[in-house]
């Protein structure tokens, strides 16, 4: 993505600015975009990248460029090279309504002919590089979210986009969709096969057919039998209604007696069962048991209360003994600690006394080292001030060189302009020399013309005069006749005169034609001469300009040579100063390191030096501490004996559970009350049931005797039931018809089962094929997925990315940091997970951890190196050629010491990716000065300045 030129009108602070990067000299590789806060530096690059390519306003989510358009006809126009094609983007926005149109041209062909935004967005989506790759590689801005600041999954996505293989995920998604479709297909086929298998019950259907045939045979036989029975019954049918009525009355009387007897028996049975259930003796026994349980629970409670009182007394005595022991133990611990403290102090004092020589040596050595440090500091300060002097000298030489280079460039421009002015100088000189000749030629031509015109006028006069002469001659002849001269003579003479005039006039037309031709010819000659004169005059008028251009050319050549000489001289001086500076800086660095080493030695000796004060008073202190130790020792012995004399009290058992015993007494009391109520209830029931049982026994005896006295009736001979037989016959006929129908249905079912069996075989084969398809789609989706080929591709980019990142870091920032990209990690459960962690080895601090643990400045360095390495990867794999790298204050977090290294890294990366330009936004003057040229943004304009 190379930006060739841009025009911004009516966006942000820019009224109408244009910049043509192609017109800048190729050696202006690093361009510093500088200006005060709020002047529009970031707005400028945002419009160049996001605005022009995606019509986006990146600083507000989901905002477009109309957000910053402020005129009715705001215009953003850029020319960019993307993937080897030259595109012209043109966005028109009405700043009031927010509406607009966007067009893209490539080789004079409109790629978005309608200018509609939806079409433009579709075109941009299909033809421009992914925005996330652009933001994490060639364009770097702290707010966009750098590659380092991304999550692992986002980093993997960006790598895939940078590799140009992001389409694999779309294919994987399509494969996953196919899995769903195939799963649905398998499910449908499996259901259909199940249905077909269930329907394909051929054996059952054959059995059903056989059964239906058997039923049909039986039904036919029963119809025949019923028909014959009906015929016989019709013959034997007679009337025996009276015998049947008598018999029915006798049966009804016996039935009534029997019913009454059974009801009485039932009542008696119920009463006797209730009577037996009401057992007074059992209830009384239960009451006795409940009362005795209540008494024993009460006695247990009283005993337990006595035991608990005794235990309380014992426990109070044991507590008092324990308190005494604890007090003595505390005193003993305190005395023991004091003794140990004194012993430790004595050991320290003895150690100091033992190290006396070492301490004295350390004090002397420390003094010596302090002096060395002071000397080194002095040297370092001197070197530093010398380096600063050389820095200013280098800056002055550099400014001189740039000034002279600018003068040389200006002189070259003057030479170009003068050379251009002198392009037709020879013509001008020739014209000036021939100007007088041309003027004379014009005068001569005009004289010829006047002469020819006079000749023509004379001929015209002669023609008019000829006619007058003839008339005059005739008049004169007539006058002579009137004066009585001889008419014949006069006529002859007049006629001769007239003939002469006629003869003369006959020559005039030719002469007139010739004279007119001469006049026309001379007029044309005058016009040509005048035109020539005008051309010559125009050319001749340029003579002073040509002469001054020649003088200018000579002077410009002289100025350019002088400027180039001066620039060379300044460069030589600058190189010499830089070499000296490097030497001094190295010396200063060595002095600083040596100073650090000496400081470390002083720090190592500090402990011994601090002990020197203690050494002076150590002997006196030792005696004092020895006496203290003896006193503490006797106290410890005394307290130990006192503790031994105090016996440890025996353990006191726990109190009995009085609450449980009280609950048992309450429960037994409730049970005794319930048993007494049960005894009273049973007695009342027995008093009510006993007379009722006696009465029912008597009723049952009387009814038994009455039933035995009643004779059993004999039934009359039954007459055949013709109607029943007719009904039976109709039933059998209906059954026969139904059996015939069932047989037909069973035969149809058998045929359907045979068809279903065939269909089931076909469906099983189709299901097997669909399951193979499902397995294939599943495999393809997994292999194309994020854990498959995509992970392998992301991983395969690791070595290249690692090499490029470390090359940039080691070349420009030294060997302190080394970066590795980890694409896999083992989880605590042993599973392998795909990731994309960035790990840093810091040899100076001895750290080896993730990039998130670094400080802001360190993370900026790693982030820039990773971003530029990613640019390199994208340029190689995804076709970013000759990109314009943009850094929007991405190095702002760096210290002044590291900014030159960062600029060196930008230059190295620019060489690696063959960048067209590197646009660097920075407020740091040293960064601006390290760039090749400055673009200053101020008051809505952009001006070019020498760096």
């Amino acid at each position: 993505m190379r930006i060739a030129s841009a025009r911004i009108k009516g966006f942000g602070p820019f009224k109408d600015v244009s910049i043509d990067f192609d017109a800048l000299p190729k050696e202006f590789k690093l361009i510093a975009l500088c200006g005060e806060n709020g002047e529009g530096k970031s707005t400028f690059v945002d419009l160049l990248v996001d605005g022009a390519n995606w019509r986006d306003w990146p600083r507000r989510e989901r905002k477009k460029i109309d957000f910053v358009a402020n005129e009715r006809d705001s215009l953003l126009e850029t020319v960019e090279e993307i993937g080897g094609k030259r595109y012209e983007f043109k966005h028109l926005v009405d700043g009031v309504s927010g509406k607009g149109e966007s067009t893209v041209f490539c080789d004079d062909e409109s790629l978005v002919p309608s200018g509609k935004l939806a079409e433009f967005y579709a075109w941009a989506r299909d033809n421009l590089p992914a925005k996330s790759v652009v933001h994490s590689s060639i364009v770097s801005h702290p707010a966009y979210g750098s590659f380092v600041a991304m999550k692992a999954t986002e980093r993997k996505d960006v790598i895939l986009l940078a590799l140009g293989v992001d389409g694999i995920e779309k294919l994987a998604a399509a494969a996953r969709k196919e899995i769903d479709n195939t799963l649905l297909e398998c499910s449908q086929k499996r259901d259909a096969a199940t249905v077909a298998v269930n329907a394909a019950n051929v054996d059952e259907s054959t059995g059903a057919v056989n059964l239906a045939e058997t039923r049909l045979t039986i039904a036919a036989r029963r119809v025949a039998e019923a028909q014959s029975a009906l015929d016989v019954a019709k013959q034997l049918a007679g009337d025996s209604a009276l015998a049947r009525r008598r018999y029915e009355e006798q049966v009804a009387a016996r039935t009534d007696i029997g019913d009454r007897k059974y009801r009485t028996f039932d009542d008696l049975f119920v009463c006797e069962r209730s009577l037996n259930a009401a057992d007074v003796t059992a209830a009384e026994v239960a009451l006795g048991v409940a009362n005795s349980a209540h008494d024993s629970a009460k006695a247990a409670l009283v005993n337990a209360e006595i035991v608990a009182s005794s235990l309380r007394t014992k426990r109070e005595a044991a507590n008092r003994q324990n308190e005494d022991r604890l007090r003595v133990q505390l005193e003993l611990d305190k005395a023991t600690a004091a003794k140990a403290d004194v012993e430790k102090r004595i050991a320290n004092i003895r150690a100091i006394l033992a190290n006396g020589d070492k301490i004295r040596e350390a004090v002397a050595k420390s003094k010596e080292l302090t002096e060395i440090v002071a000397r080194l500091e002095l040297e370092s300060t001197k070197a530093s001030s010398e380096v600063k002097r050389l820095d200013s000298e280098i800056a002055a030489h550099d400014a001189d060189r740039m000034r002279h280079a600018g003068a040389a460039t200006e002189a070259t421009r003057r030479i170009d302009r003068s050379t251009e002015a002198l392009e037709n100088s020879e013509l001008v000189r020739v014209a000036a020399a021939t100007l007088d000749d041309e003027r004379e030629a014009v005068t001569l031509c005009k004289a010829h013309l006047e002469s020819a015109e006079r000749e023509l006028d004379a001929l015209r006069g002669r023609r008019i005069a000829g006619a007058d002469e003839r008339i005059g001659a005739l008049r004169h002849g007539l006058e002579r006749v009137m004066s009585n001269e001889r008419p014949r003579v006069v006529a002859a003479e007049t006629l001769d005169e007239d003939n002469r005039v006629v003869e003369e006039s006959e020559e005039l037309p030719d002469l007139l034609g010739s004279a007119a031709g001469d006049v026309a010819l001379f007029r044309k000659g005058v016009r040509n001469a005048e035109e020539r004169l005008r051309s010559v005059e125009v050319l001749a008028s340029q003579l002073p300009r040509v002469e001054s251009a020649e003088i200018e050319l000579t002077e410009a050549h002289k100025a350019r040579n002088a400027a180039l000489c001066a620039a060379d001289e300044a460069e030589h001086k600058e190189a010499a100063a830089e070499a000296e500076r490097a030497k001094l800086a190295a010396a200063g660095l060595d002095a600083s390191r040596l100073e650090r080493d000496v400081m470390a030695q002083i720090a190592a000796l500090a402990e011994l030096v601090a002990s020197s004060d203690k050494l002076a008073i150590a002997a006196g202190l030792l005696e004092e501490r020895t006496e203290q130790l003896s006193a503490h020792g006797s106290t410890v012995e005394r307290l130990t004996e006192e503790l031994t004399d105090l016996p440890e009290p025996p353990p006191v058992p726990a109190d009995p559970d009085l609450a449980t015993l009280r609950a048992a007494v309450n429960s037994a009391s409730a049970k005794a009350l319930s048993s007494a109520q049960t005894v009273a209830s049973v007695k009342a029931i027995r008093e009510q049931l006993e007379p009722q049982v006696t009465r029912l026994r008597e009723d049952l005896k009387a009814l038994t005797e009455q039933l035995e006295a009643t004779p059993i009736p004999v039934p009359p001979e039954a007459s055949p039931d013709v109607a029943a037989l007719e009904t039976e016959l109709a039933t059998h006929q209906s059954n026969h018809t139904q059996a015939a129908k069932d047989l037909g249905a069973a035969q149809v079912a058998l045929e359907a089962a045979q068809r279903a069996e065939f269909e089931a075989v076909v469906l099983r084969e189709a299901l097997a094929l669909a399951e193979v398809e499902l397995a294939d789609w599943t495999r393809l989706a997994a292999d194309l997925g994020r854990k498959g080929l995509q992970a392998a591709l992301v991983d395969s980019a690791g070595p290249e990315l690692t090499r490029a990142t470390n090359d940039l870091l080691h070349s420009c920032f030294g060997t302190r940091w080394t970066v590795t990209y980890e694409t896999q990690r083992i989880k605590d459960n042993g599973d392998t997970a795909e990731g994309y962690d960035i790990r840093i080895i810091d040899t100076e601090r001895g750290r080896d951890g993730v990039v998130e643990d670094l400080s802001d400045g360190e993370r900026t360095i790693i982030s820039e190196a990773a971003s530029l390495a990613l640019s390199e990867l994208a340029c190689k794999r995804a076709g970013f050629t000759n990109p314009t790298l943009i850094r929007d204050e991405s190095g702002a977090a760096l210290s002044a010491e590291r900014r030159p290294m960062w600029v060196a890294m930008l230059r190295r990366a620019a060489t690696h990716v063959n960048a067209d330009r590197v646009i660097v936004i920075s407020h740091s003057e040293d960064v601006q000065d390290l760039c090749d040229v400055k673009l200053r943004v101020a008051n809505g304009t952009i001006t070019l300045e020498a760096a």
Partner: protein
Amino acid sequence: MLLLEASYSFEGGFAHTAFGYDPTDAEIRLRYTASQEHREIARAAANEERDSLIARGAISVKLDEVVTVDTRARVPEVATARSLDDQLRAYWDSQPTGPDDAQRGRLLDKLHTLQATQ
């Protein structure tokens, strides 16, 4: 200040080109390269070398460690494969349970179908 460049390899140990140099009264910076895996052992060897140089008369020896990272791709063949078909083949070759020839043919046919419809 004298810069000595050295390298450490697991097989060859610690090596630099100035073993025969007389370090007497020299301030030396020993810059050595070591792979990420062998940093600890290389540091121990560099310390030994520093002690040796000081014993031979060097005034001071500063150690400057340069870590080299040797990262290898799990399936480097996918990076060099030209087409998606070749990338998939390379990926399958690297898998312990890759598909057989028949399934590979079917999978590639399906891939082509998907590519045609995209």
